[in-house]
């Protein structure tokens, strides 16, 4: 099962209810300085910060939102893919190789 870690130096902040991922200097070599997240993406990010694995994310989303499992799985996969692509997330173990 894939496990993911949030990149060190990337923080999720909330400004007047808007969720922003912000990257400190060392992290900016690997990901954009800032990205705005919607509510559900911020929810997933917080779960990942708490050490959740992909299957934990699915469970958490199904508990939190009224959504069918295939749809939830698709949304989570899309979120993880985007976050990996932009460099905000790492696959566990990947960090040591950078």
């Amino acid at each position: 099962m894939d496990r993911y870690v949030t990149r060190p130096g990337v923080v999720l902040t909330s400004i007047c209810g808007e969720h922003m991922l912000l990257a400190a200097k060392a992290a900016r070599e690997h990901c954009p300085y800032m990205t705005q997240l919607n509510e559900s993406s911020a929810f997933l990010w917080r779960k990942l910060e708490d050490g959740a694995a992909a299957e934990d994310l699915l469970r958490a989303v199904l508990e939190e939102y009224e959504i069918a499992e295939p749809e939830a799985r698709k949304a989570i996969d899309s979120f993880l893919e985007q976050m990996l692509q932009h460099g905000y997330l790492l696959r566990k173990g990947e960090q040591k190789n950078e």
Partner: protein
Amino acid sequence: MPQIYEMTIAGHPLRYAFLHPGTRFLLNPLPRRVEGEDCDIAVTPEKIELGRNFLPPDSSDAYVEYRCLIELTARALLPYGGCVFHAAAFAWRDRAWLLTAPPETGKTTQFLNWQRLHPGEITMISGDMPALETREDGSVWVHFSPWNGKENLFSRTSAPLGGLVLLEQGRENRIAPLSPREGVSPLLQQFMALPETEEELYAMAALLERMLRTAPAWKLINLGDDASTELLRETLLAELKERGEA
């Protein structure tokens, strides 16, 4: 041993060691010499070389250092709840109003229009980069800084934040409240600090949150003409009337 100079920015005395002797003469007001060797801010030769890439090729070493000081000063203010912000800031009716936008988008034009249409009403605090301060009571204050744009418009004035206006050039004049959803990202980009640590990121986010909780924000799509400035003035005046401050 480097000579140390001090400038008070947004209420905080900051100590600088300059690499090039000409740099301090570009700063207005002139920093004053102080005793001691410790400083808060010093530009490294590496930073100068990096900074040079973003400036015209004929920029002097002193000018490059002068520009590099903005970012370092902005970061030095973050732990105190302050920062340097890219905007034209003017005082009107005991409040400070920030007009912010990417460069060359007409911030100074709005100020000059207003000054011409309503002489004596407003005072420029900083033409390009006011310094922000969060006070103990939670209010955000706007101060002048030594970086005031090519027109060098500034005055030694400070005032509590009255409102923010994000300017955008357009084919018509239209003003509307700026929602956090629309405003947070462009406004964050107007902070002159590029935070290096997580603490600095949180401090910058907290300052923007404080600004938006304290003061209303609008987006002004405009032609840069007199009508756009009157629209801006009427909007701010209506806001003051609503608050009972007009």
